[in-house]
């Protein structure tokens, strides 16, 4: 019998909003072998190049338990080394910093939410069981493309 968490994740991967993100080139699933979910998210580098970063998620007991997400070198099957992590402003640097648990440093993440009471202090960014995977993908996509905004605005100035 399918684990309810796996069934829920599979259903969410079939959501119109999730599919729209795939079709728009914002994200895509690399592999799903419950509870492991590997995915890519499109990003804009400080020089304006469009690239994609890999992530490894753990969706055990989803959605009651927060997903845990690490930035991951999916080809080498290791955490992405610090020099290769996304560059940009402070929000980018903090999100993808190497820290004790080395998950993405966003309050919705299972480990970051507990760390320094981030989930309590920032409830609008914390995980709730009524959230969907798309919330995480949108959040990471937003952070990974902050460089694009600065580029656009400088070009328009």
């Amino acid at each position, binding site marked *: 019998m399918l684990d309810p968490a796996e069934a829920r994740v599979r259903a969410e991967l079939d959501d119109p909003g999730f599919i729209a993100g795939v079709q728009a080139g914002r994200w895509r*699933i690399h592999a799903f072998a419950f509870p492991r979910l590997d995915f890519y998210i499109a990003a804009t580098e400080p020089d304006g190049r469009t690239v994609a970063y890999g992530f490894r998620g753990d969706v055990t007991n989803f959605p009651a338990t927060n997903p845990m997400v690490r930035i991951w070198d999916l080809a080498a099957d290791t955490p992405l080394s610090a020099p290769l992590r996304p560059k940009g402003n402070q929000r980018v640097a903090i999100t993808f910093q190497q820290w004790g648990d080395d998950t993405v440093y966003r309050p919705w993440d299972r480990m970051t939410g507990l760390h320094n009471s981030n989930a309590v202090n920032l409830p609008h960014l914390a995980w709730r069981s009524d959230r969907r995977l798309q919330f995480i993908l949108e959040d990471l996509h937003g952070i990974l493309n902050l460089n694009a905004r600065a580029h656009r605005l400088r070009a328009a100035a």
Partner: protein
Amino acid sequence: MTDIKLQDDTDGLALASKGEPPDIHRIPVRFEAHDLLIEVTADRTVEYILTIIATDHALLIEDLYIVREGEDAPLACEQPIHDGHQRRHHVHRRQPVTVTVNYQAASHHREFRRHGTLEAVLDWAIRVFDIDASMAGEFELTRMGSTEELPLSDHVGHLAGKHDAFALDLVRGDIANGGHHA
């Protein structure tokens, strides 16, 4: 980091595993922030989607229009729906929306097309509030009085719903506190 384009050779897991008949396509459609999948055959035109939305919401087809995700021009009613990619189709009411953005003690407003993105609103707000481009990445939009940051890919029309105006706050994007980033 990988130098790949995600829109090439990529399908969602579910898209790839459905095993549906090849002549039936499930088209993602968004109307007033509600997402649905509409099954269509290759011969269906844009009018088919408009008819479904208009019927469900007691609206007139002529009061609605459709834009494909990533495109700027509305689709003609007689145009085929399926474009080989199953991109999301956004259905909007025709009238534009006046968006007010509040930042500190000031406010500015401007009319936007319903298929304008919140990213376009944010770009405009950063310019009109004279925020330096180097600081642009620090800001997000929330609904007025809320702290929930809005996804910038969403369309103005989906936030407006049946209304012709709404207000947003321009805020500093929050960052988690801690780790040991140098």
